[in-house]
């Protein structure tokens, strides 16, 4: 735990993280008992940075994103851990009322573009007023004005958009309206859940450009949740890779992409076809990602598909899930792998 804190403070200057997640465990009640979707996750979001959270289906990334708003949906619940948000305190301990005010107020959330995140029976403008009413905004004209500024800044005809129903907006427009709703009350933490899934390349590039722009303009702390490493690579300074409810690697995006340490991160990056370079470098990853019911309860969650385990058969891999620990190269990288830890020990042993 403390190791993780040290690691991030060393990279992100002196500023304390805007969001600090410690030992977070989220379980879902199923007929087979309570199963963890997220187990013992530590994650820091340094202020003013975009962090990309990458994982496949069932990795727990969306559950983690929801927990940042204290909105894990039933039958899930936060079983352990804490989520400290700058200026709010520990979200896990907040009252329902303060949580409701924090959502949309301090922390903005943007849905996937393909999802219909607007009430189909009300215009955008009416829903904006509902938002204001829910958050006790007195000055309605100011609210509408800042909404219009945000929309215009994203290249939309603000007046027309406010007078539109959801079905009258295109996918790209809905996404921008979503961003407006997330930020109109001046939230300083922004969570984007699969913001570009189901968009084509050009729309995706547009949305990412906007995300980047509002992020810098408003000095946000942003978490971008996606299955697409390319999206993270394009906009995020930091990346966290999740698998089976666990963060397996975390670090500067360029570092991780250049030299991934965790076998899953490495395999995932190698499994992506590229637009240039050697095609034969791409390698498929055997097996399939685990679901809630099939995440191994003992040992490393990635063991079954792990090339390193297949080769070296470390007993520790079977015994316990490795903790997310800093690697010895001093890059501030965090990796949860027994093999990497052993290599580090050997390396330090040799130099000593």
């Amino acid at each position, binding site marked *: 735990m403390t190791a993780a804190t040290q690691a991030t403070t060393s990279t992100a200057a002196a500023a304390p993280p805007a969001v600090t997640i410690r030992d977070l465990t989220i379980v879902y009640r199923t007929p087979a008992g309570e199963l963890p979707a997220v187990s013992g996750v530590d994650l820091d979001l340094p202020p003013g940075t975009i962090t990309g959270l990458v994982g496949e289906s069932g990795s727990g990334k969306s559950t983690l994103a*929801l927990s940042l*708003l204290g*909105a894990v*949906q*039933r039958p899930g619940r936060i079983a352990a851990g804490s989520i400290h948000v700058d200026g709010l305190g520990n979200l896990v301990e907040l009252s329902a009322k303060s949580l*409701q*005010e*924090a*959502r*949309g*107020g301090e922390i903005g*959330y943007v*849905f996937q573009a393909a*999802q*219909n*995140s*607007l*009430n*189909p*029976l*009300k*215009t955008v403008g009416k829903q904006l007023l*509902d*938002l204001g*009413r*829910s*958050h006790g905004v007195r000055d309605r004209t100011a609210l509408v004005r800042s909404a219009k500024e945000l929309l215009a800044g994203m290249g939309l005809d603000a007046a027309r958009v406010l007078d539109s*129903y*959801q*079905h*009258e907006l295109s996918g790209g427009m809905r996404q921008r309206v*979503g961003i407006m*709703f*997330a930020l109109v009350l001046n939230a300083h933490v922004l969570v984007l859940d699969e913001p570009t899934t189901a968009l084509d390349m050009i729309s995706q590039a547009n949305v990412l450009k906007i995300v980047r722009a509002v992020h810098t303009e408003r000095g946000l702390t942003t978490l971008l949740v996606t299955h697409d490493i390319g999206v993270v690579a394009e906009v995020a300074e930091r990346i966290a890779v999740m698998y089976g409810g666990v963060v397996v690697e975390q670090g500067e995006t360029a570092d991780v992409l250049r030299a991934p340490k965790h076998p899953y991160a490495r395999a995932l990056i190698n499994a992506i076809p590229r637009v240039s370079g050697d095609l034969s470098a791409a390698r498929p990853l055997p097996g399939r990602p685990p679901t809630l019911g099939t995440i191994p309860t003992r040992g490393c969650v990635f063991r079954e598909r792990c090339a390193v385990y297949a080769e070296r058969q470390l007993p520790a891999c079977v015994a316990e899930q490795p903790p997310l620990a800093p690697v010895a190269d001093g890059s501030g990288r965090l990796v949860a792998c027994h093999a990497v830890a052993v290599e580090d020990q050997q390396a330090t042993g040799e130099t000593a």
Partner: protein
Amino acid sequence: MRNLLVRLAGHLVRALVMIWVVATFTFFLIRLMPGDPVAAQYEKLVQQGMSPDAARNATRLTYGFLPTGSGWDQYVHYLWRLLHFDFGRSTQTLGVNASAEVLTGAKWTIGLVLAGILISFALGTVLGVIAAIRRSSGVGDALTITGSLFHAIPQFVMALVLITVFTVIWPVFPTDGNVDILVDPGFNGPYVASLVSHASLPALAYALSMFGSYLLTMRSSVISVLGDDFVLAAELRGLTRTMRLRYIARNALLPLFTIFALTIGFMFGGAVFIEKAFNYPGMGITLINSIGHRDYSTMNATFLLITAAVIVANIVADLLYTAIDPRVRRGGEAVA
């Protein structure tokens, strides 16, 4: 707005066609009746010594049908008179037009049906929302089971049970009729009280037999809306619970309009059972009596009126739906 007018025009055309088909159907039904009552009446009058023309006229007045002439002539004549709301004369109540006979009954039926619908709709939708939101708790289960149970009980069974309980075992309500005949009609206390006490049980029977289906429909509609993305989005945007409930309820009510129209039709149709059980002199009783007395003019008029009521209810529901749902009202893809 244009969408609304186009829709309305389409509805009217379809409604007219449907009423025409039903009218044609009853025309042939009555003419096909064993021993064709119209021809029988005509022949009887002629045998009694009336001139053929007089007999033809008299028969026509009674049934609204020409007893003689080509089938086509008779049919056109019948339709022409229907256009003038002339259904002929009642043969059970002498000297009264069939249309007047029906309207007397309709007055009572509409009152009952409206009362029943309002009560059951309000009860059913509110309980349906609760049943959906508390669906994983005992309250939700109990409501759902109650809903299915009441939904499954036939109207006449409900009526008979109510009668048995509230007039036999625990006699607090009058058994039958619409008003105490000993009370002076008019807008006075005793008369209104008598009206209300006579209407209470039948209206309750309607409400109890209908609220279950509203409850179940509302429940599944709310559950489906709860799964919509915008509900979670509203929560994540920090909308208050009240606000979110309002969003959910309004969206969930939309599909209920279709059901609403169907139930109105069903209630007019099913009025027969409850009116019979309570001997409440509405359209249902009019229909049964006309059939019992082989009063074809009244039967025809009642049947056509009930059909028309159902069609109108359908149109109104659809227009309401159009007015409420912006996806239909304001272009975009029509929601079927």
